[in-house]
């Protein structure tokens, strides 16, 4: 009986993992297909399509996406930590309302938000910011709830006795923030910043309204390309951006993300 249950358990896990990874495997396989039609399980392999990725057509959108995602991660990281600090650590009046306001973008569909931003910009006569500035602002609004939430949770779990211990040892407020509070919430904040980067890098529904023709982000370039052709280059672009995202996650992990949170620095 027990063995049957164990078998079912592992079977369930295998099914879930297959369900998650199979589509990715299809894309990887398609990107390696020698024929220009997209096929799954080709019998011959080639990496020739990856050579196309260095063409301006893909490189420019990729660089723009990285630039925007980096700025968005930075801005929402700083703002998220400041917001969480005010709400959780200082407990300023109206904390609950402020937190609810900060998290509210999560409840509005992105398409609606995109339309709203475009309309708003044209009403106040600021169409000129469309493109990179508008993309950065919109992505920050989108990513901020995640960073704030992660930073707030880390701060809420922070043991107040550590702060009191530092205080009794003569540490001023600035010193306590620098040496105790920030290092303690760093893993949570880095996780939030990683999310912010990925959210910005992958975004389509908001970006589609805000990009300027001829100066698009990578996901929008992919959408535009897909309208006319579906070929292995497409698959190669997707595989490359997938690898890039994994590399970003790995990098943040190294700096001290989730695993540091689990092991608490006792390396």
């Amino acid at each position, binding site marked *: 009986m027990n063995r049957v249950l164990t078998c079912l358990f592992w079977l369930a896990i295998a099914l879930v993992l297959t369900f998650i990874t199979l589509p990715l495997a299809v894309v990887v396989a398609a990107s390696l297909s020698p024929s220009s039609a997209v096929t799954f399980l080709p019998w011959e392999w080639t990496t020739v399509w990856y050579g196309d990725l260095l063409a301006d057509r893909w490189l420019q959108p990729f660089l723009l996406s990285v630039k925007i995602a980096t700025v968005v991660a930075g801005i929402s990281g700083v703002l998220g930590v400041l917001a969480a600090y005010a709400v959780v650590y200082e407990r300023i009046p109206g904390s609950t309302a402020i937190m609810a306001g900060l998290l509210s973008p999560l409840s509005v569909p992105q398409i609606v938000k995109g339309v709203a931003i475009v309309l708003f910009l044209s009403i106040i006569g600021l169409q000129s910011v469309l493109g990179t500035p508008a993309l950065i602002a919109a992505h920050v609004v989108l990513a901020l709830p995640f960073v704030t939430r992660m930073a707030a949770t880390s701060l809420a779990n922070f043991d107040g006795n550590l702060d009191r211990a530092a205080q*009794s040892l*003569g*540490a001023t407020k600035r010193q306590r923030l620098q040496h105790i509070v920030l290092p303690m919430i760093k893993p949570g904040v880095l996780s939030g910043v990683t999310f912010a980067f990925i959210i910005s890098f992958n975004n389509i529904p908001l970006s589609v309204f805000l990009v300027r023709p001829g100066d698009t982000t990578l996901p929008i370039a992919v959408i535009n390309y897909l309208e006319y052709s579906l070929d292995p280059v497409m698959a190669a672009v997707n595989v490359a951006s997938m690898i890039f995202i994994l590399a970003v996650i790995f990098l943040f992990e190294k700096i001290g993300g989730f695993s540091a949170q689990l092991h608490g*620095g*006792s390396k």
Partner: protein
Amino acid sequence: MNSFDIELVSVSKSFAGIPVVQDLNLQIPRGEFVSILGPSGCGKTTTLNMIAGFNTPSAGDVRVRGKSQNRIPPERRNLGLVFQNYALFPHMTVAENVGFGLRMRGTPKAEIGEAVDAALRSVRLDGFGSRYPKALSGGQQQRVALARAIAPRPSVLLLDEPLSNLDLKLREAMRVELKEIQEQLDMTFVYVTHDQEEAMAMSDRIVVMWQGAIAQQGEPGSIYRNPATRFVADFVGRSNILSVRRSIPGSEYFELCIDGTQIVLRSDCAGNSAVQSCCIRPESISLLNVSDAGTGPQNRLDGVVRRIVNLGAHVELLVEVANGLSLTVLVPSSRSSLVPELASTVTLGIDPQDVQVLSD
């Protein structure tokens, strides 16, 4: 210049209108090990937090070395603090933890190194400097916390139930060690605990707190021998507490008529006619042989043994001396020949000096 490290002058504290500490007056001389002892909710931790500066008194004055502290934030009070949950900084090594206080003050690196080594030596953790707190046992972590608190040489060390998270054997070993460290550093220790054995073992003076006020203070021995109130007698050590119906001053002794019985106990405590209860420690009651008749202690009571509990070092007897009145008696196991049978009749002897009158 007075010689008190800490003075609390008519200090009161209430939270949301509920009084937690009421009109507390306390003076702690330099170099003393003082325990604030009391059950949870008696206001002892609030008192400690007011000394440390984390709570502001609603009324009254906290003074450190004669200087009022009411407007001084915790970080400028120069007091060391040790917590029950250690509160070590997990992202720093042991040496960085211990050196933290000096580092925040901008002490030169070389000096910090020496101070860290000295502090770790005094808690017998030399060589542990490069480890992280998580790699240490509970007892070691608490010693690091102690080293961290004493490294900047504070005027006073405040300890908030620091041994409560440790297991019994370690707790007993740490008691001795803490006392030794305190004597060696000649530093004033204020130690908050609910554990009366702990307070007894280490303190020069015990302050028993109850309901936000001081119930009694004094040397551990005198608190144990002469508890002033019913609460102290009950909380510190074990005791038989008897209600007194009437007390009559005699020529040599006070005679206490025990409520609900015909028993009259003689006490040489200076009581008065308003005495309402008295206390007898279980170990001060002796079992008398028939041959002792006429000699020995003044108070003699006959009773029946109702229960025998073996406690290892002692045997505890519950002896019914009157209808509805039983006394707990402790007999050392080494004298097991004295232990009577269940339901047998025994004679108890109580010296008048062991009958303490209590106020309420």
